[in-house]
């Protein structure tokens, strides 16, 4: 079993009062709560903080934790002192193995002792995982490797960490923030309680060309000035290949050209649209001849790109 220094996690002394522990928890909870925090690793940090507080806020659990000793470093392998399990843990007595036991599960079980020993159904733990997939995977569907470490009670009533590996098949049609569910694939229920669910929150990985908004996709379509003025037929990338797009003459920068049904597929059929956003780009190193042509154009044209200024500023 690995030691965790719950006092250090909360940033309090070992002799901190219950009030100090609560204040320290509140401060860290505001900082790391996954529903409100944008800190990197907020979810993991909050889990550590919550686990520490769950144990230290309860006088019985805190006493049991303090009896484990204080001379360990976080992450260090250790065994509870002789007799500890008889005094605090799952009744049973006798010599118990603490291998594969997570400290959090052990302390969760301290209060759950009565419930576990009795026949109250306890639902299994729900897991929530953020799954990052590419736009291509969202388009075709994909399979994700899932590795969970779930808590299960052994025959002596000790909660043990059990690895669970499987694949989750995601049908095509996922979009940013989409939620999926694998019923019963979380932690095992106890005493007839339902098995927990695994919930997947989809996050789309950034793509070098396409930017998603729901099932719509946006791509920048760069045009040369003469293509925008005269119109053109240009090749535009889509998620699975390319298509030709007719750019009408007189196309302006910022205009959105719609390619219907070329966005991300939807779960129940159909697909979003792809929008090509026009940008006019100019050659950064024109040749002397090109410059000459532009000068001629400048001399001959009557086009005034800033005429709207004159309408306002007289």
């Amino acid at each position, binding site marked *: 079993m690995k030691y965790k220094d719950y006092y250090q996690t909360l940033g309090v002394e070992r002799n901190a009062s219950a009030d100090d522990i609560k204040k320290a928890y*509140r401060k860290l*909870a*505001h900082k790391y*709560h*996954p*529903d*409100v925090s944008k800190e990197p690793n907020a979810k993991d940090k*909050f889990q550590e903080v*919550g686990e520490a507080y769950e144990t230290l806020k309860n006088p019985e659990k805190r006493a049991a934790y303090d009896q484990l000793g204080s001379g360990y470093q976080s992450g260090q392998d250790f065994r509870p002192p002789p007799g500890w399990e008889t005094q605090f843990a799952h009744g049973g007595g006798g010599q118990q193995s603490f291998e594969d036991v997570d400290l959090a599960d052990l302390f969760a079980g301290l209060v759950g002792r009565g419930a576990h020993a009795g026949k109250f159904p306890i*639902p299994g733990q729900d897991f929530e995982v953020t799954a990052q997939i590419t736009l291509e995977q969202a388009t075709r569907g994909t*399979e994700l*490797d899932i590795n969970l470490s779930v808590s299960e009670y052994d025959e002596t009533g000790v909660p043990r960490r059990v690895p669970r*590996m*499987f*694949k*989750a*098949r*995601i*049908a095509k*049609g996922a979009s*940013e923030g*989409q*939620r*999926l*569910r*694998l*019923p019963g*694939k979380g932690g095992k229920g106890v005493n007839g309680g*339902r098995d927990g*669910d695994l*919930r*997947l929150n989809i996050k789309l990985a950034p793509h070098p060309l396409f*930017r*998603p*908004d*729901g099932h*719509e996709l*946006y791509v*920048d379509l*760069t045009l040369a000035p003469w293509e925008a003025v005269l119109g053109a037929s240009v090749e535009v990338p889509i998620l699975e290949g390319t298509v030709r797009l007719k750019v009408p003459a007189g196309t302006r920068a*910022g205009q*959105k050209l719609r390619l219907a049904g070329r966005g991300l597929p939807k*779960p129940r059929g159909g697909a979003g649209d792809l*929008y090509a*956003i026009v*940008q006019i*780009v100019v050659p*950064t190193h024109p040749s002397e001849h090109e410059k000459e042509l532009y000068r001629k154009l400048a001399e001959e044209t009557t086009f005034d790109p800033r005429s709207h200024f004159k309408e306002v500023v007289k």
Partner: protein
Amino acid sequence: MNIEIYQAEWFDEHQQFSLAELADLSGMPEADLRQLIEYAAIVPVDPDKVEAMFGAECLVTARKAQRLRSDFDLDASSLVLALSLLERISELEKRLQALGAQFPKIHR
């Protein structure tokens, strides 16, 4: 090693839950859920029906409410305030993402 493959289900607006299912799946007692309904933080699909049914978004809200309540010891009105502010932030983030998607990058 033989790895099993399971089909993930879409969790979307087509799913509906009874109040009891909402309580079971969110971990929030029915009495507390009723308070959220009273404050309109959770709204049944058809409020006039005798047995209220709730859309999948209500389950997301109920789970969030349960986490916030147990992690911050919030009472019902504080919880509803926190939920409504988080909802507004989420809407603004969505709009920001939509604008970001439509905003062209600089190409040279």
